[in-house]
């Protein structure tokens, strides 16, 4: 045993033992706590920062002394890369847990079943029902507008326009469109639909703005799915004399339908949290309105915005509860999308 380690030791050069990292971390943490007693940097956040810096410095120095500069740099880089992943998790966990805890305190059947009609900012009670109705209707309308356009565009890009200049241009600008800020979609619908054509601010106007944000997402995901349909399937259909359009509708789309549905659900999840376009195109409303084509209509994001604006304790409680409802709404869509992907993917295999 000893001879073996000696032999590899000679081949590899000296390496740090595995326990070096946790040991350095412990020492760094202990030092940070001690330093917290005497230095101006204190508190949980401050102590953690000091501990992290001490760990980076100590671990790299240790590695430099034992293993040399190349391995010291390698260890520093690895630690930084691991740390950046952990750093990315912090806000996610922090946000989700805060929403769960603070929203969970207020969320109840009554909150889901009542509107804000006649509830002042200082009063407790009231609920999100009117906003839930609005969000479901607006998102459905946006889906009805965006899915046909998005899917047909993807069909054009993959089945008809391959390598043509026009399809390259469309594909490129679809990508560019994904980067258009959501508030611009709201401004566009306001200046075109409401100012120029004279329509009112309604749920439908909001849905139009949402559909502009949804189209590029649907195009991209559908395109990816159509691309992975094997061309043997198409060729087999052509060989049987099936027209191209029937091949697309009867062979290509059914093969890809699972993936397309997943993409659409993810697109819905993305737009259902949008606030900015709705602020410009639907009025804030406190009452239930089932008709998206007339009058102001609430939605969950604008409900949360409105409650934050009121800034009283009961209103902020309602804002957190509304945020929880929104997160649950998005989570259900996400899970359904993954389930569809999993079920249809499994069936094909």
């Amino acid at each position, binding site marked *: 045993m000893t001879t073996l380690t000696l032999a590899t030791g000679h081949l590899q050069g000296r390496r740090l033992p595995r326990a070096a990292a946790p040991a350095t971390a412990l020492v760094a943490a202990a030092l940070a706590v001690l330093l917290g007693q005497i230095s101006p940097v204190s508190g949980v956040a401050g102590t953690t920062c000091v501990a992290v810096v001490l760990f980076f410095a100590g671990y790299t120095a240790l590695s430099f002394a034992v293993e040399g500069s190349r391995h010291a740099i390698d260890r520093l880089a690895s630690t930084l*890369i691991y740390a950046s992943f952990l750093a990315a998790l912090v806000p996610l966990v922090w946000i989700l847990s805060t929403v769960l805890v603070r929203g969970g305190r207020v969320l109840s059947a009554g909150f889901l079943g009542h509107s804000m009609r006649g509830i002042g900012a200082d009063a407790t009670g009231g609920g999100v029902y009117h906003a839930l109705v609005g969000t479901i209707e607006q998102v459905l309308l946006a889906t009805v507008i965006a899915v046909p356009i998005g899917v047909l565009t993807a069909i054009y890009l993959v089945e008809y326009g391959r390598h043509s200049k026009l399809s390259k241009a469309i594909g490129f600008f679809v990508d560019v469109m994904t980067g258009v800020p959501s508030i611009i979609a709201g401004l566009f619908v306001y200046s075109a639909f409401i100012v120029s054509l004279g329509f009112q601010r309604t749920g439908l106007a909001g849905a139009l703005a949402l559909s502009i944000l949804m189209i590029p997402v649907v195009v991209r995901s559908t395109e990816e799915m159509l691309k992975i349909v094997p061309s043997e399937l198409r060729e087999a259909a052509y060989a049987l004399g099936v027209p191209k359009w029937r091949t697309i509708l009867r062979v290509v789309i059914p093969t890809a339908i699972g993936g397309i549905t997943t993409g659409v659900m993810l697109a819905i999840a993305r737009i259902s949290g949008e606030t900015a376009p709705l602020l410009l195109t639907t009025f804030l409303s406190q009452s239930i309105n089932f008709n998206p084509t007339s009058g102001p209509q609430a939605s969950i994001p604008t409900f949360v915005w409105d409650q934050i604006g009121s800034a009283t304790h009961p209103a902020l409680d309602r804002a957190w509860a509304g945020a929880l409802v929104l997160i649950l709404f998005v989570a259900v869509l996400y899970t359904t999308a993954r389930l569809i992907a999993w079920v249809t993917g499994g069936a094909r295999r």
Partner: protein
Amino acid sequence: MTKLGAGVPDSIQGSVVRRGDLVFRRLAKGAGLAVLVVLAAIAGFLVWRSVPGLRANTANFLTSTAWFPDQSPSRFGIAAIAFGTVVTAALALLIAVPIGFGVALFIAFYAPPKLATALGFIVDLLAAVPSIIFGLWGLQVLMPHLGGLQRWLNDHLGFIPIFHNSLGIYTKSLFVAAVVLGVMVLPTVSAISREIFLKVPHSNVEAALALGATRWETMRMAVLPFSRPGMISAAMLGLGRALGETIAVALILSALNVVNWHVTEPGGNTFAANIALGWNEAGPIGLSALIASGLVLFVLTLVVNVVARSIIWRRAEFHEGL
């Protein structure tokens, strides 16, 4: 088509173009064109509807920091909001780009392969959190926690002008908005650079490792040079997102249009936040002025996105050609 059926009489071949095909093809092409039309219409309507405001404006639209479009005489300019937009986006990128690349490297090369997809999915979840929730969290939870950090920056790094804070108030500052923006942009940067890293040829990575390079040396010599254009465009797409983000920023900032280099002091505004905060109080000229500022934001994000996407597209065509 003509070559295949060259010797065949017309009666057997039948007509090549069927009506169903023609209709369906046109439908699909029409939908594709609709996307281009929408993009052009956005520009067209924003230009058209910003004219009344720009006509009424008595101040310089580009250099004025005032925003009083509904007063008479009407005075407004984008200097302050352009400043706030650029500063918050730049600070956000300073936070998001290094961490985003780190996360992408972790998922592509450092994480156990079996877990990599799941871990990537977890980071992507951050992109699914609606911006209103980022705003609520930023305002109610993060802002009080950042007070200490900003005070520390003032006490110890206050000699650097941007960290100096003479008011002793650390809420509703561009700095807080930038931190929240950084968190929001992070998944964009990490998701796109991850895609780029996964395209690095395995043979390059394995060759570096076989020559005895450490993992970091492999990254530096085989992975990063290959991915540089993609990483630049990932950062630019993050920039585009940071420039246009509305609600989270609007909740954190107050509508105070000033140019202030002390980023930890309250005040400052961005294009998008200015629109969201001013919308309900604006009169006809005010709305037109907001649309004009929205047009500038649209052009800004369009340029950033077009440059970023053309880098990616050129790379993609290059790889298809290989």
